[in-house]
């Protein structure tokens, strides 16, 4: 694996391998000094053309815990403001001799373009409405941690599917690992076509809740909605929000997940996010370990062959 661009590139075996290796990095993260020398001398640069809290910090922490050097590129203080093109920016950074570029951009496909232009490894940290593979990996890992496996689990993905890269990567990854996925959203928040999506579709959250193992809530992405897709946020919450009343309808062992940042009171009621069955903070904690695994699998692998490992 040279880049991590999409869940489809990994396939079910690749996802399983990332999750297996993540177990080792969770152990590292739980130590008093959570740091290993594995990627000493490597440099990881985050190139974020879109705002982010958890993904950027999570990658940075993952790289630091592997003893890699990290650099941050933020658009507002860079030469991009002087009109430097994306291509020139990437090639300039690459020319400094870096090992990985973590890319977030508001346009779909940018990480693929960047991977063509540079010699280092490229990790997609979210491209437009398209994909967010490390989020899907950490969600799979989090569910697996509670349930052992995703095989046969019923997962409802609820909310703004249309604008959600988390949903695209997540649905693909969940179904690759054998889960049955139902998308629950108002018709205006569904993508124009669901052809090829391995999912069932419902517009009625109440009818779905009683028979799910995981409710995965998506953030209402007001910043991406260019037109009026909803009468009002209150109406959305009334029909699709996970309110305290709706939580009662869930099976006792059902889990609640959300990729963050959460809009308390919109897609999830304020106190529901803090219930024991809510894995939201667990997702964030696992995110660091999963990204350590991804960085190590991308940067820690040699050309192959070599001498006997024993000694």
């Amino acid at each position, binding site marked *: *694996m040279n880049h991590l661009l999409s869940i489809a590139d990994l396939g079910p*075996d*690749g996802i399983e*391998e990332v999750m297996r*290796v993540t*177990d*080792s990095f*969770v*152990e*590292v993260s739980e*130590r008093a*000094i959570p740091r*290993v*020398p*594995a*990627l000493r001398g*490597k440099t990881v640069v985050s190139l974020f053309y879109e705002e982010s809290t958890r993904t950027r910090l999570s990658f940075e922490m993952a790289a630091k815990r*592997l003893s890699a050097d990290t650099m941050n590129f933020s658009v507002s203080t860079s030469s991009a403001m002087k009109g430097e093109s994306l291509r020139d920016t990437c090639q300039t950074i690459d020319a400094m001799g870096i090992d990985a570029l973590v890319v977030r951009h508001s346009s779909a496909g940018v990480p693929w373009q960047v991977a063509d232009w540079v010699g280092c490894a490229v990790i997609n940290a979210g491209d437009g409405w398209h994909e967010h593979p490390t989020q899907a990996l950490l969600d799979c890992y989090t569910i697996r941690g509670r349930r052992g496996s995703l095989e046969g689990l019923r997962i409802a993905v609820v909310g703004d599917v249309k604008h959600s890269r988390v949903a695209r990567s997540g649905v693909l990854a969940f179904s690759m690992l054998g889960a049955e996925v139902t998308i629950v959203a108002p018709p205006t928040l569904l993508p124009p076509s669901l052809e090829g999506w391995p999912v069932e579709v419902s517009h009625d959250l109440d009818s779905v809740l009683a028979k799910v193992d995981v409710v995965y809530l998506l953030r209402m992405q007001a910043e991406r909605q260019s037109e009026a897709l909803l009468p009002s946020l209150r109406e959305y919450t009334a029909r699709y929000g996970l309110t305290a009343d709706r939580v009662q309808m869930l099976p006792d062992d059902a889990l609640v997940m959300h990729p963050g940042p959460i809009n308390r009171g919109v897609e999830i009621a304020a106190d529901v996010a803090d219930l024991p069955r809510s894995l939201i903070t667990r997702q964030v904690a696992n995110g660091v370990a999963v990204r350590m695994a991804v960085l*190590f*699998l991308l*940067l*820690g*692998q*040699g*050309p*192959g*062959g*070599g*001498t*006997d*490992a*024993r*000694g």
Partner: protein
Amino acid sequence: MAERERAATPPYGGVFSARSQVMDAEDLRRAVTRIAHEIVERNHGLDGVVLIGLQTGGVPLARRLGQALSRIEGVAVPSGSIDVALYRDDIGLRPVIPEAVTDIPFDLTGLTVVLVDDVLFTGRTVRAALDALNAYGRPRAVQLAVMVDRGHRELPIRPDFVGKNLPTRIDEIVDVSDDGVDVGEKRATGR
């Protein structure tokens, strides 16, 4: 990822073909018993002694040593396992991947750690293990027990307890299992 290619090529995959058996199951059992006695003798008992098996070959051996020690002294010896992949000095030079999660459920500070591995070769795994142990405390002493010392050291490391000294060619493979110790070669599959 490269897992599938790795699985098909030596030293990870391929077929191990044994040429000769140098220890049988009985020899192995006797060696384990002798090493256990030596550990007790060297440490004047088992006070503060813990066993740490190196993933993957050292883990079953550490388990057997633990059983032998408790037969001899009548006490259970705390044991753990360690995966040194993240501390190796050849990361990036060849495929390195963690095989199992390190399990050391106690602070090593002040204890005598007996590191256990099946085969001692270049010494680089042991160097990585010494580095990795630091993350779990500062042991009073670290000792090394191996079933086979096959030579070809690349670092100033020597074992404290040895099952068998076995001169080998550098391209040979030494395989330790419950059934004994074999020497042979590994060949890529499909050739």
